[in-house]
């Protein structure tokens, strides 16, 4: 027995330091009685002891809500006593999480107690924060907006919205921007899954997760590529591990890092960042080579797979190994596992989406699953795990610069549709916009600037921007800025704006990184626990949240703030025309009803507030295996009425748990691939061939339903007279009566048609996905064969560079690949979660993960402070964490930190008492230019950097 262990010795590096703790021997190791250490340095970081919630015997009200962090959508029982959120109980009967939570969900109650909240409106004057009243703030902000609109036009204001809005607020925000006369609005989806939505929707109709987390339990193989659910969607792991245990699922993780998910995998494949398409083609090479594809499925439901074959033929094992770093054995083994274990699904997240070739990646993933015949089956699917709690909802509700709610787009038809729903005169609406025409067309019909490019909207030459002027003012409404790239340029952009308005429960990094003296407003918004509304989880289920507590301090719910601003700007009445008002707050349920009345494209029409609330009150009736209610008030429904929930609420469609599943009747949640791209292409039929839904009256492919089609089919008379009156001259998307949809479904047909999924998206820069090297690549030898695109003169109103960036070889100075990602304790830009002590305690310092061999090359030891300098000169000072998680040529930084900028702490710039507990450098200070060729997604997953020890 040895009593002396290595754990005796203080951790001066020998034992390694975890990602979760860096030992601070503040003065304790300096000798002498005079040292501070003699009297003992308290282990507590902070000297104030937190006060516990007061004990109360008051009656307990139990509220049902949903976690506001990620999109898994975990149910929560919040227990409130006398208006104080005193307890949080696990919701064991919730069908998605069964009471489980990750670190963030388990600490939700602290939302009701965080002392670091923004408490009242503030304005920056002479570098100091001054308090304002709401009236004053709205008045001053409104006046400035009116002034700028007058001088420079409505497009000079950017209304950046949030994935943390509930559905009603997201919808209202989009409406707000429209009434304000601009398409310059966006939210986090742009920098998260925009390439997914574009790529996937253009492949088979909708760009959302096809199955559900629960359904993953039925998968026989699950491939995670660029996804780390153990940290980003921990509750999804409950389902995934059940799949592993109960269905003997093969778990394959493809990632540049050996993630926590890889630790639970059967097979881990290390891939070079940015080589996803080559990897997928490499898998397909083996699949085609061995005849493992599902040819029947392809014949019936897929168009242009032969073109894919031709492309894949150029990716034999040697080429794939050269590009991705994955050897032939491993590729074949992975392909075999997928082929032999069906139905299987693929899961991808930011690792696949955040590239200049994001839209290629996402389509390649879809094509893989189509080849295997996995789409539209239980246990199969393209399972896209979305990010923020309501990024799916905000995307669906159209809070984007290129569309209106429901993905209607920005065509005149789309605007007319929504003008009808909003009960506003179309001409009036049109008059709100800048009438001139620019490179992209007229602003009303052309996509606005994206959040990923807003800084260029400020810094770019005015004549190169496809609107009248540069951006002059910006609203950061529930959106962090340290999640966008090019931090140093962002700071410059912030200084050039005439006004910044941050609307958020916390000051956020935007409030402190600007280095301005004035012209910055902070408006305290309430969290989702201080208001009510619906939220859409990643599996398309819509959940209703109760209000847990009243807004803290002087914060207001977002929809109230929107109304106050709209009123000041002169379109308040129009904004809330159809809503009952309670003081300055539009009634949330009325907003739900309004979008129910208009979102026929994605089937957000059947989820009335009443049905959603019934689901909320009856969690226990829904099955954990397939989300279906067995008995109870919602009998037959799928939990949350996953969209598309066709027709009106009265029709009672149960929701669509698995997209494109032809084994079920459409009226019971089945679906086909959407006929979105026409009937034929180059003379070839692109409607489904011999594949149709269970009990469908049309036993073949068919186009989307219009009034004409109903008349041709002889089904027109099944409409009621009222329906006929409305539906005449309309199609399934614009018929506000819902009659066309109802009749189509009565015949077990999908209202949107029955087509083939297409592998060739002829409207994209690369119709068949291609591998292209990242803009900042360490493989100069591959640039010649796999170059990026030519520069684009105007995309989303801005010139976008590709070739110009890529042709510069910076590998001499910046030889290391830099990638970024998530931690389980924090979320997004991190201001909210770093302001919650229970979470902040777990991750107190920003760091960079460096491989041990690389660390030795750079003479860096664990715990050293290092400068990580990105290829465009932005540098961050962070702590080195030496770990074999990353490959030798790759380093990783989490992106959740903020509050320090290039070595300097910004703590003093926060309003008194509202700095987060933990500050750190933002990873995106060091990241670089690079935007997807279809959606302007930023390339944060692969850039270049160099690292040196900080002296």
């Amino acid at each position, binding site marked *: 027995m040895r009593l002396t262990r290595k754990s005796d010795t203080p951790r001066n590096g020998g034992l390694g330091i975890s990602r979760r703790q860096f030992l601070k021997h503040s003065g304790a190791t300096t000798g002498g009685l005079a040292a501070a250490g003699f009297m*003992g340095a308290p282990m507590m970081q902070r000297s104030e002891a*937190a006060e516990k919630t007061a004990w109360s015997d008051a009656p307990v009200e139990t509220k049902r809500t949903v976690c506001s962090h990620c999109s898994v959508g975990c149910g929560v029982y919040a227990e409130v006593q006398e208006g104080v959120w005193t307890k949080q109980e696990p919701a064991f009967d919730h069908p998605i999480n069964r009471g489980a939570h990750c670190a963030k969900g388990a600490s939700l109650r602290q939302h009701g107690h965080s002392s670091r909240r923004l408490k009242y409106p503030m304005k920056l004057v002479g570098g100091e924060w001054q308090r304002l009243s709401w009236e004053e703030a709205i008045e001053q902000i409104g006046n400035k907006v009116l002034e700028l609109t007058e001088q420079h036009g409505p497009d000079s204001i950017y209304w950046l919205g949030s994935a943390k809005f509930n559905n009603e607020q997201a919808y209202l925000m989009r409406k707000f921007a429209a009434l304000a006369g601009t398409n310059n609005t966006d939210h986090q989806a742009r920098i998260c899954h925009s390439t997914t939505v574009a790529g996937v929707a253009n492949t088979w109709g909708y760009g959302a997760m096809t199955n559900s987390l629960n359904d993953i339990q039925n998968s026989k193989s699950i491939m995670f590529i660029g996804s780390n659910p153990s940290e980003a969607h921990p509750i999804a*792991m409950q389902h995934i591990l059940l799949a592993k245990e109960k269905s003997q699922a093969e778990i394959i993780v493809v990632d540049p890092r050996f993630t926590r998910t890889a630790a639970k995998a059967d097979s881990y494949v290390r891939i070079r960042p940015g080589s996803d398409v080559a990897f997928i083609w490499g898998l397909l090479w083996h699949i085609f080579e061995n005849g493992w594809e599902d040819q029947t499925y392809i014949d019936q439901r897929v168009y242009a797979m032969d073109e894919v074959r031709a492309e894949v033929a150029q990716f034999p094992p040697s080429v794939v190994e050269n590009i991705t770093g994955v050897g032939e054995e491993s590729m074949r083994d992975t392909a075999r596992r997928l082929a032999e274990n069906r139905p299987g699904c693929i899961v991808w997240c930011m690792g696949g989406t955040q590239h200049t070739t994001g839209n290629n990646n996402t389509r390649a993933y879809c094509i893989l699953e189509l080849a295997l015949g996995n789409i539209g089956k239980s246990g199969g699917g393209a399972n896209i795990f979305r990010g923020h709690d309501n990024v799916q909802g905000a995307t669906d509700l159209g809070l984007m610069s290129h569309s209106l709610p429901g993905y209607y787009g920005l065509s005149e038809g789309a605007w007319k549709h929504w003008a009808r729903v909003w009960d506003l005169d179309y001409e009036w609406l049109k008059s709100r916009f800048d009438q001139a025409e620019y490179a992209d067309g007229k602003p009303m019909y052309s996509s606005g600037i994206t959040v990923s490019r807003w800084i260029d909207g400020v810094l770019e030459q005015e004549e190169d921007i496809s609107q009248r002027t540069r951006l002059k003012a910006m609203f950061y409404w529930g959106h962090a800025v340290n999640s966008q790239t090019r931090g140093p340029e962002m700071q410059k952009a912030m200084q050039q704006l005439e006004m910044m308005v941050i609307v958020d429960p916390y000051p956020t990094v935007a409030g402190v990184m600007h280095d301005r003296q004035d012209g910055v407003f902070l408006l305290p918004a309430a969290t989702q626990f201080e208001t009510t509304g619906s939220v859409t989880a990643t599996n398309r289920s819509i959940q209703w949240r109760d209000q847990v507590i009243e807004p803290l301090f002087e914060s207001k719910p977002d929809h109230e703030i929107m109304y106050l601003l709209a009123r000041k700007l002169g379109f308040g009445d129009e904004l809330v025309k159809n809503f009952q008002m309670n003081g300055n707050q539009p009634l949330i349920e009325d907003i739900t009803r309004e979008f129910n009345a208009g979102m026929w494209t994605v089937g957000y029409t059947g989820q009335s507030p009443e049905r959603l609330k019934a689901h909320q009150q009856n969690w226990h009736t829904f099955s954990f295996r397939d989300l279906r209610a067995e008995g109870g008030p919602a009998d037959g429904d799928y939990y949350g009425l996953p969209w598309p929930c066709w027709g009106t609420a009265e029709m009672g469609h149960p929701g669509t748990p698995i997209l494109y599943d032809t084994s079920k009747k459409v009226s019971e949640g089945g679906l086909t691939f959407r006929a979105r791209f026409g009937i034929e292409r180059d003379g070839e039929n692109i409607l489904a061939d011999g594949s149709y839904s269970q009990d469908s009256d049309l036993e073949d492919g068919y186009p989307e339903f219009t009034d004409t089609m109903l008349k041709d089919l002889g089904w027109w008379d099944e409409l009621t007279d009222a329906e006929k009156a409305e539906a005449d001259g309309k199609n399934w998307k614009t018929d506000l009566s819902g009659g066309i949809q109802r009749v189509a479904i009565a015949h077990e047909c999908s209202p949107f048609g029955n087509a083939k999924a297409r592998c060739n998206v002829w409207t994209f820069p690369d119709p068949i996905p291609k591998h292209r090297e990242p803009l900042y690549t360490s493989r100069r030898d591959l640039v010649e064969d796999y170059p990026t695109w030519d520069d684009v003169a105007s995309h989303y109103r801005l010139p976008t560079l590709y070739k110009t960036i890529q042709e510069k070889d910076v590998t001499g100075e910046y030889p290391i690949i830099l990638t970024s990602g998530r931690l*389980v304790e924090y979320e997004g830009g991190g201001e909210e979660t770093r302001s919650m*002590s229970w979470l902040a*305690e*777990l991750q107190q310092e920003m760091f960079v993960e460096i491989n041990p061999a690389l660390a030795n090359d750079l003479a860096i030891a664990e715990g050293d402070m290092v400068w990580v300098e990105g290829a465009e000169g932005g540098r961050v000072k962070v702590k080195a964490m030496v770990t074999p998680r990353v490959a030798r040529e790759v380093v990783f930084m989490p992106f959740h930190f903020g509050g320090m900028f290039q070595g300097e702490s910004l703590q003093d710039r926060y309003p008194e008492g509202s700095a987060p507990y933990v500050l750190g450098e933002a990873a995106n200070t060091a990241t670089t230019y690079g935007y997807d060729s279809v959606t302007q997604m930023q390339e944060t997953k692969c850039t270049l950097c160099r690292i040196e020890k900080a002296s």
Partner: protein
Amino acid sequence: MATMKFMCDAERCIECNGCVTACKNANEVDWGIQRRRVVTLNDGEPSEVSISVACMHCDDAPCIAVCPTETLYQRDDGIVLHDKDLCIGCGYCLYACPFGAPQFPKENAFGERGKMDKCTFCAGGPAETKEEEYQKYGANRIAEGKLPLCAEMCSTKALLAGDAQEVADIFRQRVVQRGHKDGAWSGNPRAETDSLAYDATQQG
């Protein structure tokens, strides 16, 4: 009488730290003190495994044996509680505990450590009133017929808590389901060959 125990199924633990913050949620322990911690071995390597550890409420608890003031005691249901009024902050329980469960808010000269704090299995501690109990020890969920919040909120149901027999049953079911011949932590030679095709005819 039921014997209350914790058990963490390391095959399910994904180091999400939900248990750590759930405990904070229920008991509101000060910054710097985490009653429950998650330990990861071989972080970043193929043999990475995580496990959540807090007081294990041992049957023959070393902490109880070495405490000079009898601060620690064991209930009939096996839960080891502590009485903050008696604690003198000597630290012996910490030295004795194999799991590092006891923690102290300070570590100052003259052995001033403050009062020991540790996992109570969400069963509170000795106090006159409920307010006092909550202030000193945190939640008493056991008295309400509930289980510790850490286990109730575990993201993958890795952490189990409750009657030892029931916990063992649940775990045994999992082991059987996973097909292990000799318990859940079995060695697996196949893992060495993870990049090659696995030959199913080979005997494990």
